[in-house]
């Protein structure tokens, strides 16, 4: 079995408080293979990736099993032996290169550090190899790129530089932990291709960790599906995608398929106009962020604002919410001009426009129970106290699909999806006309996100609420939005009914954006790249 470059047997990992995160996982990585680890958060993907390097994050320890790499068992060897392997034979690419690069040193210093430290190359050799990698990874001015500091390059470039740093010692194995998740879709394609080609070109093996089936379908030869620290099934990528054996895998695959093909709400709504933006400009200091925004939203409609980071979509939400007064133009709400700042808006206006945020973890006060969190707007806006308040809290909990006993829990005891439901209930408690949803599903796992979207849709049918939906995720748009507004560099580039936009995008940028959404078909990446 000499072509098995990494063998993990019955791996168990526990936190220092004794909770077991991995309950005996086994896997083999063959020479030259890219093995995908897929699962939702908490499945133990990253824990396996780090354990493969003999490393435990934040006090986690390997408590059983074997990690056989380069003739050593990393689960049971001296610290010196582990350090000799790390970086040199197996190297790590983190999700956020922006956080993983040391801000105090130049890129080149960090990249050639490991080969020099392990005594594998001379400085000249290490530099030459770095320049070669920069070239292969398509970085600008490969000769001098390394002179820059991390904050001087873009996110996509930094992610590629991180790959160069991992490849610096010519390791046998790369551990790639969600390496493209933090990137915009259009950047993701490019990085994905370079990653795959670089790994293949130099004949490396890789453990590729991600929660996105469509992304992994493009790069992995085989997949391991994980859940709750256990292996669900393992098989060739094609088989997992087309003929999953386990029920859980089937759900993962069908959810992803649905997200890519589901039709949008067909009925085009024709209610009265609820929100209107007239040539709105907004700036941060003197820097213009959005300009000449014209937007009209009808009662009971869902309008999605899509765009990449920096396109100004969140700024638009802040303007409507009154958090950032526009520098020019006016916002009309239900026929009347909306005061620019939320401070000037009366109680009733504040009630009618509610916000739900991206990160439910930080949007809830950790010291307030769910009941208190939802009960507060009930008291403020509807004057409900005591028993009436409690009854309404329970009714709202039922409406959003949480059991009544949740009312007395603190947010810490809730899962991410449950927290987001509480945030939705809090917004509903105000009986709003308009809810601004700022990336409300992007921090959630796919199956959980799907549930939240379904909930939002049902609430709209029942209560006739209007949604302004800010997102970068086009599959979310497709499933929820009646109309879609595409933003780029602070301007609206295209606006259309969602199904029409997806069928016949009018603008080049929209086409590019749509084409960048990874598809489940393993051949998709090559098709996109060869397409004109």
């Amino acid at each position: 079995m000499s072509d098995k470059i990494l063998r993990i047997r019955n791996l168990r990992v526990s936190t220092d408080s004794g909770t077991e995160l991995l309950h005996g996982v086994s896997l083999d990585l063959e020479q030259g293979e890219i093995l995908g680890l897929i699962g939702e958060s908490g499945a133990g993907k990253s824990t396996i990736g780090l354990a493969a390097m003999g490393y435990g994050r934040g006090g986690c320890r390997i408590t059983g099993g074997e990690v056989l790499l380069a003739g050593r068992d990393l689960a049971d060897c001296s610290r010196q032996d582990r350090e000799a392997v790390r970086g040199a034979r197996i190297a790590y690419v983190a999700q956020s290169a922006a956080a993983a690069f040391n801000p105090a040193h130049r890129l080149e210093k960090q990249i050639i550090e490991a080969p020099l430290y392990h005594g594998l190359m001379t400085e000249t050799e290490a530099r030459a190899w770095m320049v070669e990698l920069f070239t292969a990874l398509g970085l600008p001015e490969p000769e001098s790129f390394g002179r820059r500091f991390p904050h001087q390059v873009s996110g996509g470039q930094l992610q590629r530089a991180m790959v160069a740093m991992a490849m610096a010692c010519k390791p046998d194995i790369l551990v790639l932990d969600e390496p493209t998740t933090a990137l915009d879709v259009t950047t993701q394609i490019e990085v994905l291709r370079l990653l795959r080609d670089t790994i293949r070109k130099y004949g490396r093996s890789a453990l590729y960790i991600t929660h996105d089936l469509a992304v992994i379908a493009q790069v992995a030869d085989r997949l391991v599906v994980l859940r709750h620290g256990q292996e669900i099934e393992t098989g060739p990528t094609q088989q997992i995608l087309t003929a999953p054996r386990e029920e859980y895998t089937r759900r993962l695959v069908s959810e992803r398929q649905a997200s890519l093909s589901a039709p949008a709400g067909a009925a085009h709504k024709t209610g009265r106009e609820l929100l209107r933006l007239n040539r709105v400009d907004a700036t941060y200091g003197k820097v213009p962020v959005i300009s000449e925004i014209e937007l009209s939203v009808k009662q009971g409609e869902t309008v999605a604002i899509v765009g990449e980071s920096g396109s100004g979509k969140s700024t638009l939400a802040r303007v409507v919410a009154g958090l950032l007064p526009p520098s020019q133009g006016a916002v009309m709400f239900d026929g009347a001009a909306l005061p620019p700042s939320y401070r000037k808006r009366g109680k009733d206006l504040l009630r009618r426009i509610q916000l739900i945020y991206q990160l439910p973890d930080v949007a809830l006060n950790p010291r307030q129970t769910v009941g208190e969190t939802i009960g507060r707007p009930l008291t403020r806006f509807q004057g409900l106290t005591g028993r009436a308040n409690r009854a309404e809290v329970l009714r709202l909990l039922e409406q959003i699909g949480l059991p009544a006993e949740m009312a007395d829990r603190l947010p810490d005891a809730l899962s991410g999806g449950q927290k987001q439901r509480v945030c939705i209930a809090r917004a509903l408690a105000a009986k709003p006309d308009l809810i601004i949803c700022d990336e409300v599903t992007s921090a959630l796992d796919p199956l959980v996100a799907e549930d939240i979207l379904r909930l939002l849709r049902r609430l709209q049918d029942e209560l006739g609420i209007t949604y302004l939906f800010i997102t970068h995720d086009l599959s979310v748009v497709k499933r929820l939005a009646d109309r879609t507004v595409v933003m780029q560099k602070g301007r609206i580039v295209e606006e259309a009914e969602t199904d029409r936009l997806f069928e016949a995008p009018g603008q080049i940028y929209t086409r590019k954006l749509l084409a960048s959404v990874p598809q489940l078909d393993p051949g998709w990446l090559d098709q996109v790249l060869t397409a004109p």
Partner: protein
Amino acid sequence: MLTLIAKRAVLGVFTLWLVSVLVFAGTEILPGDVAGAILGQSATPESLARLRAELGLDVPALQRYVEWLTGFLQGDMGRSMASGQPVAGLLWPRFWNTMSLAAYAGVIAVPLAVGLGIMAAALRGGIFDRVSNVAALAFVSLPEYFLGLLLVLWLSVKTGWLPSLADTYEGMGMAAWFRATTLPMLVLVMVTTAQILRMTRTTVLGVMDQPYVETAYLKGLRNGRVVLRHATPNAAAPIVNVVSFNIAYLITGVVLVEAVFNYNGLGRFMVDAVSRRDLPLVQAAAMIFGAVYVFLNMVADIAAIALNPRLRHPRGKEA
């Protein structure tokens, strides 16, 4: 970056001016006056008024402030009201005494404290970390005069190794000076080392939780190298801050230590001047203390700006 530093420098000068206003106003509302202090119980109203006029105390406060400030800017600190001697001649020798003691303590304390702090962080949870933590906490908690008296008891009274009083005089030999000032130096080193050590440890540990430190470990680097190369540079700015704060303390906050060891420094000089209501001396000493504080804080802030790679190497410009 240069404009940031320039702005900070201007702000420093402005702060110094505010200090001068406060010092002058503060000494104006001090109870009693020097004429009364000089003439004592037997003073008649006439003789008090005469003395006040002689000392210039009958002029309006604002005019006196302007004259005092312009004089001060030209290096003329006025004359002592009690002895009539120029303030400068009385003050500077004491100032240099204080500075020498501060330098003696600082040169030892700062490298020692920063080194020990980094070491404690690198060996987090180990024996060294725990012992240094307990010791540092003890030194920070004990009042410095108590520490001073303990040292006198052990190193002077019981063993006779060092003199208990830090008597220094003009033309004293180097060896004798060091021997005389070692006890107060030790007290100051203990107090400042403890503070800087604790702060350095905390800051470095804070940086140790950053993802780029994990990256360094995953390169297979030794613990020591990770701490020194990857964590410490990012902890530099807060460390510089606490160091400068402690140096300022060494210069301006040592009056108790000077009192315990009868050391002829600026702190005791100022206390004596206050008790004699000798306003020009008090004002001059307070201004010096203020200037030291403002200057050191400014140096720390400028160092923090200069240590920030984002400001040193702005985006869009090639390195």
